[in-house]
């Protein structure tokens, strides 16, 4: 059974993708790579509830040790209209995040989708999210 709020988020996100609502961005998303995504599995160190963007700080273990990533989300106003709450993500949460990485190679990107500890998935409503080509998650 899908919880009501999650269903609402999914529905609204689908509408956004379908172009049935006006979608605008406060800035260009050109600094993020539209040709691939990266899936990060790590621990949240901070979920920052601010405008013009919410931000998610993640520690991600890898072959070279722990690496820190900063992910940009959309405006918290847009996220609230999609059903997000500031309490949805907490420091210490183990999450899976799909991001469009920064073109410049720095350890950051644009969050497209997050899977929370309970398996719940959230999308921040990135305008034209469908234009970011998804890379299948590596096994």
């Amino acid at each position: 059974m899908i919880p009501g709020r999650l269903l609402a988020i999914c529905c609204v996100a689908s509408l956004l993708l379908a172009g049935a609502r006006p979608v605008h961005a406060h800035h260009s998303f050109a600094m993020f790579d539209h040709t691939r995504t990266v899936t990060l599995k790590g621990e949240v160190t901070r979920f920052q509830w601010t405008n013009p963007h919410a931000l998610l700080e993640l520690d991600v273990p890898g072959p070279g040790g722990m690496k820190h990533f900063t992910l940009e989300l959309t405006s918290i106003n847009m996220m609230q209209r999609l059903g997000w709450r500031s309490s949805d993500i907490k420091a210490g949460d183990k999450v899976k995040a799909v991001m469009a990485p920064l073109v410049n190679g720095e350890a950051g990107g644009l969050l497209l989708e997050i899977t929370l500890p309970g398996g719940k998935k959230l999308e921040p409503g990135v305008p034209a999210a469908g234009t970011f080509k998804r890379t299948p998650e590596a096994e």
Partner: protein
Amino acid sequence: MRGLLALMLASVAAVQVLAGAQNPRPGVPDITGSWERYGGFFGAPTEAQRNDPTIPPRAPQPPLKPEYLKEWQARVQAAREADAKGTPLATNYTNCLPDGMPTMMGAMFPLEILQSRGQITIIEEAFTQVRRILLDQPQKRIDDVEPGFYGRSVGHWEDDTLVVDTIGVKENVRFQNTSHSRDMRIAERMHLVAPDILWNEITITDPVTLDKPWTVVYAYRRMKNYTLLEYVCEDNREFADQGFQKSTLGTEKK
């Protein structure tokens, strides 16, 4: 007794003020409330959208005079090329600056319209932008208005249409990336085309930059149960560096 009378009179006055804030003049449409942009679609409109008479036609290209058209085209091309390189050009947003007029009426985020005695106030949620339309007051001369993001707006009702005149918008406040002069004038005609769909026909005139008036029409849909949210540009990690938008993502902020 005198105290009780004063209290009663004060109560009556308070009720009148509240009533006045609701809808000041009988016969004037009630447009107070929250509105979202309707029909400003990303990508090509669907057939259903094309057949919806409450969705206005797409905005035409700005009828700029040749020298300004050339400059505008160069600006659009430069932005496109910078985007292709992954280094977008900085905009006012990069510096947390609001849209100003008339871009704010594009309602990127919801609008709130408040009708009160002698004034209509329009708030745009993003950046908490506020403009005031003074009703039934004469407009000043352009030279007598200090330039600002929203300019000076006066308006009046012509039957069911709110007619607004705005002057005094700063030259660095650009609409669709076009240049304008101090002599720019923005005329707006707002009217309901359906009980919950409001149109705003915006006509820009500028004897310096435009060959002829430029009209753009926006539609808004009433949001019956929506209260505008707070918006403060609190931690902007995008910044302008040599004209380009940069980000501090990837370098953790302590």
